[in-house]
C-alpha cells in the first residue's frame, strides 16, 4: 500500500458535554475522491474543521505525506497544501471574480485572469474573470471558490456539502470537475449525506455516526440502502403512502402577486400565482435566493401588503393581504420558517416559553397571565411526540442542535392543528431518521385533509412529499407541475431559468 497523503490517528474533539469526534482514524490516499458520509450532527464538519485548522483537536495526531502535521491554523493548512471550500461562500459580491481572488493571491490582474481562464479550461470551471460576483449564479460562485483554492495548488481539497446548493445539472458538471482534479493529482475530501452522489463520484467512503467511525468502504460496491443503514445504524423507514384525493377547498390562493420589496438586495416577485387545496401538498422548488424568503414573508404575514393592494392573497377564502401574522394565524394558519433561531424560536428562552410564541391562543393563557402548567404540558407533549432530544422543557432553545430545534418547531406548529400549514425547508439539518419521520407526518396530515405548502431546495424531498411542484426562479413562479408526471431534470430546467424565457405562462 502506498503512503497516505493525510493520516489521522485517534483524533477527538469535544464541545462541553458533546463529543463531536471520538478517536477518529482516517487515511486519505493520493489521487482519491474520499467521501465523509454521515447524518447531520455526526461530526463531519467538525472533522473537516480540525483538518483545515479552524479548530484544534483535544487529542490525536496527524501526518501529512509521512511527516507530522500540526493542525494549527488555516494558514498553516494552506501552506502545506490543504484547501477548503465551505458550504457558505465567502466572496465579496461587489468585486469581480479576479478581484476576489487577488485578495488571496496577490499577483498581477491580467496574469491572474489568464490563470483563471486556464484553470477553467482544464477543470471545467468556466467563469468570466471580469464578471462581478453578484451577477453570478450559485454554481458559478462555487467555481470561483474552487478556483481560489486551486490557486495555491493544493494536494488535498475539502468540499463541505458542495452539492447542497446546486441544481441537478450543475451537480454533474461539478462531478466532472472533481474527476479531472483527481486525475491531475489532487485528492478530494467530499462531505455529503446524499448517498447516490457518493456512489457516483467517490472511490472511498468513511462513515461517521455520533462522532465515531462506523465504516470504511468502497461506495461503488454498496447500494444506497446499505449506505443509509451504516449511516443511521438501522433500516430506513418506509415513506408514507399518499392517498389519492379529490380537490378539496382552496385554503391558500395567490393571484398574480407583484411585489417589490423595500430592501434593494431582496428579490422582487412578479406575477406569482399559486393555489393550495385541502388534502394537498404543494412544493416550491428553486435555488435559494430566487425569491423564496420574500414569498414566505408575504404568505406568513411578516410582510404585509399596503391596503390599496387588495384581493391578491386569500387564506381560507378571506383576503388576508393586509392582515398581520397574528391575524392570519387566527384563521388557522401555521408556519415553520426557514431560520429556526431568532425567528422560529427565541434562542435565549426556554422551550416552554418558545411554545408560548405561537401556541398561546390554545388555552395556555388565563386572564392575560401565562398558565404555567398548561404551557409545560403542551411543551412536554411536543417533546415526546416529536422525539425532541433535550434535557427537558426548561432547556434554552439555543442549546438544542439544529435538527432537534427543527423537530420542536415543526411539532409545535402541527400541534396547533392548522387548516393550512406552511413549512420552509422542513428537514434542513435534521438527521435522516427524523427527516423521514417529519415527512411521514406531513403526508399523514395531508391524508387527513390539511393543506400544506412546502418550500425546499432538496428536490428528492419535494418528489417524496408533494402532489405538485412549482419552481421559483428570479421571483417568478412556474406553472404547477404534477409530481407523478414530472422528471427531476424538468424541474432542474425551471430552476436555472431555461424554461421561463422559452414560454410565457398564460394567466
Amino acid at each position, binding site marked *: 500500500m502506498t503512503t497516505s497523503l493525510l493520516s489521522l490517528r485517534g483524533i477527538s474533539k469535544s464541545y462541553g458535554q458533546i463529543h463531536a469526534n471520538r478517536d477518529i482514524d482516517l487515511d486519505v490516499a493520493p489521487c482519491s475522491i474520499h467521501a465523509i458520509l454521515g447524518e447531520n450532527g455526526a461530526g463531519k464538519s467538525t472533522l473537516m474543521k480540525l483538518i483545515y485548522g479552524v479548530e484544534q483537536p483535544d487529542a490525536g495526531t496527524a501526518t501529512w505525506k509521512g511527516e507530522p502535521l500540526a493542525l494549527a491554523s488555516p494558514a*498553516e493548512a494552506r501552506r502545506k497544501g490543504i484547501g477548503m471550500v465551505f458550504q457558505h461562500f465567502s466572496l465579496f459580491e461587489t468585486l469581480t471574480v479576479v478581484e476576489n481572488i487577488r485578495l488571496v493571491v496577490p499577483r498581477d490582474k491580467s496574469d491572474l485572469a489568464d490563470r483563471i481562464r486556464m484553470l477553467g479550461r482544464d477543470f471545467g470551471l468556466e467563469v468570466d474573470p471580469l464578471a462581478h460576483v453578484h451577477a453570478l449564479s450559485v454554481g458559478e460562485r462555487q467555481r470561483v471558490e474552487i478556483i481560489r483554492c486551486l490557486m495555491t495548488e493544493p494536494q488535498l481539497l475539502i468540499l463541505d456539502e458542495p452539492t447542497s446548493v446546486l441544481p441537478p445539472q450543475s451537480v454533474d458538471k461539478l462531478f466532472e470537475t472533481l474527476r479531472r482534479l483527481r486525475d491531475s493529482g489532487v485528492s478530494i475530501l467530499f462531505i455529503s449525506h446524499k448517498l447516490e452522489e457518493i456512489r457516483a463520484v467517490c472511490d472511498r467512503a468513511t462513515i461517521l455516526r455520533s462522532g465515531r467511525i462506523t465504516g470504511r468502504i468502497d461506495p461503488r460496491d454498496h447500494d444506497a440502502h446499505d449506505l443509509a443503514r451504516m449511516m443511521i445504524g438501522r433500516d430506513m423507514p418506509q415513506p408514507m403512502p399518499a392517498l389519492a384525493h379529490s380537490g378539496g377547498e382552496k385554503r391558500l390562493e395567490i393571484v398574480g402577486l407583484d411585489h417589490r420589496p423595500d430592501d434593494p438586495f431582496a428579490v422582487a416577485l412578479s406575477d406569482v400565482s399559486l393555489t393550495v387545496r385541502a388534502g394537498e401538498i404543494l412544493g416550491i422548488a428553486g435555488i435559494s435566493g430566487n425569491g423564496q424568503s420574500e414569498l414566505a414573508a408575504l404568505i406568513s404575514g*411578516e410582510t404585509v401588503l399596503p391596503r390599496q393592494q387588495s384581493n391578491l392573497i386569500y387564506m381560507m377564502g378571506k383576503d388576508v393581504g393586509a392582515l398581520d*401574522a397574528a391575524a392570519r394565524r387566527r384563521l388557522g394558519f401555521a408556519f415553520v420558517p426557514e431560520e429556526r433561531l431568532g425567528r422560529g424560536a427565541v*434562542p435565549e428562552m426556554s422551550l416552554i416559553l418558545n411554545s408560548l410564541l405561537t401556541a398561546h391562543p390554545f388555552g395556555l393563557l388565563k386572564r*392575560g397571565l401565562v398558565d404555567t402548567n398548561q404551557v409545560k404540558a403542551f411543551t412536554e407533549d411536543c417533546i415526546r411526540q416529536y422525539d425532541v432530544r433535550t434535557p427537558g422543557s426548561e432547556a434554552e432553545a439555543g442549546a438544542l442542535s439544529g435538527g432537534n430545534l427543527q423537530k420542536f418547531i415543526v411539532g409545535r406548529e402541527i400541534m396547533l392543528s392548522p387548516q393550512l400549514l406552511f413549512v420552509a425547508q422542513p428537514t434542513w439539518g435534521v438527521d435522516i431518521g427524523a427527516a423521514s419521520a417529519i415527512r411521514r407526518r406531513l403526508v399523514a396530515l395531508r391524508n387527513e385533509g390539511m393543506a400544506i405548502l412546502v418550500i425546499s431546495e432538496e428536490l428528492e424531498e419535494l418528489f417524496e412529499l408533494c402532489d405538485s411542484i412549482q419552481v421559483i426562479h428570479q421571483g417568478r413562479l412556474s406553472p404547477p407541475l404534477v409530481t407523478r408526471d414530472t422528471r427531476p431534470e424538468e424541474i432542474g430546467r425551471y430552476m436555472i431559468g431555461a424554461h421561463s424565457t422559452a414560454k410565457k405562462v398564460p394567466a
Partner: protein
Amino acid sequence: MSALSAPLRPVLVRREHASLPVKLIAPPVALALATLLNLGLYLLMGRDPVAVFHAMLLEPFLSWASFSEVLLKTGPLLLIAQGLAIGFRAKVFNIGAEGQFILGAIFASAIPIWFPEATGQWIWPSMLVIGALGGALWASFTAFWRVKLNANEILVSLMLALVAAQLLNYLLLGPWKDPNGFNFPQSVMFQSDAMVPILIPGTRVNVSLLIACALSLAAWVFMQRSFAGFKLQVGGLAPRAAGYAGFNEGRAIWLSLLIGGFAAGLAGAAEVAGPLGQLQRSISTGYGYAAIIVAYLGGLHPVGIAFSALLMAALYIGGDNAMVSANLPVAAVRVFQGSLLLAYLVAIAFVRYRFEWRHAAHGSSP
C-alpha cells in the same frame, strides 16, 4: 512549528447556557471593583480612602437618621428603574426618564399652584395620578416619532429631557414663580393636603415608597407572568421571532415608553408632593439617569432592582456625607455611579461568555 510552542492566550468563548451563578454574582463583583477603583482614585487625589469608604458606604446604614434618608431616595429610583427596565428588556431605550420625571413634577404641581386654597385628602392622590400621566405624555412624543418615522428613541428621549428642563425653567422664572418668593425660581409652598402622608413618623419617608414597592410587585407579575410582558421580551430578544409570531412592534414600543414615562412621572409627582413641597429647579438631580444604572445593575429584574435602588440611594447619601467629611468634590458620586455601571457591564459579559485559554494560532496569511 508545533502548536504546543505557541503561547497560551485567553479567548472569549460563548457559553452554551447563560450562567445563573455569574448573573447573581456580577452585581456584588461590580460593586467591589468600582469601590476599589474609586478608592484608588481618592488616594491619587490625596484623600484618605478609609475615611471616604466609611463615609460613603457605611455611614448611610449606621444611623437611623441617615438610613431613613436612604429610603427616601430609594423611592423615586425604584419607581423609575422598574419602569425603565421593562422597556430595556424590550430593547426600547428610554434614556430620557429625567424629562418624564420633570414633567410629572410639573403636572402634579399644577393642582396646588392653580388651586392653592383647595383642601381635602383627594389632592395628593390626584397629583400623583396627573403627574404619572404627564410623564407618560412626555414619553409618548418619543414613542410617536419612533413608530412613525423610526426616529431613534435614545436621541429623542434624551433631547426631550433637555426640553423638559427648559420648560421647568420657564415656568419657575415666569408664570409659576412665587410672587412672594424674593424672585427665587420656585413656586409657592403647597398646602398640607397636597403632601403625600408620612409613612414613618419622625422621618421624611412617605407613602410613595409603599407605592413604589407595590408597583415593583406589579412589574414582577407583568414581566414574569403576563403574556403582554412575554411579548415585550420576545421583541427585545429576537425581533424577527416577534414578527414571526405576529407581535406588533409598534405596540411594544408604545407600551414600553408609556410604562417608563408613567413610572418616571409618578416619581416626579411624589418628589414635589413629598420632601420638596414646592416646585423648584433642584427637583432635577439626575434620578432619571441614575435609574438607568439602577435598572441594569439590578439585572433588569424587578427583585434585583429593589436591591440596586437601595444601593444607589445609599451612594447618594454616602456621597453627600463624603463631600462634607472627606472634602470630596460633587463629581465624585457621578464618577462612582459611572464606574459602577461600567464594571457591571464588564462583569455581565461573563454571563454569556467565558475565558478559555488557547494556544494562539499564528495568524499570518499567505
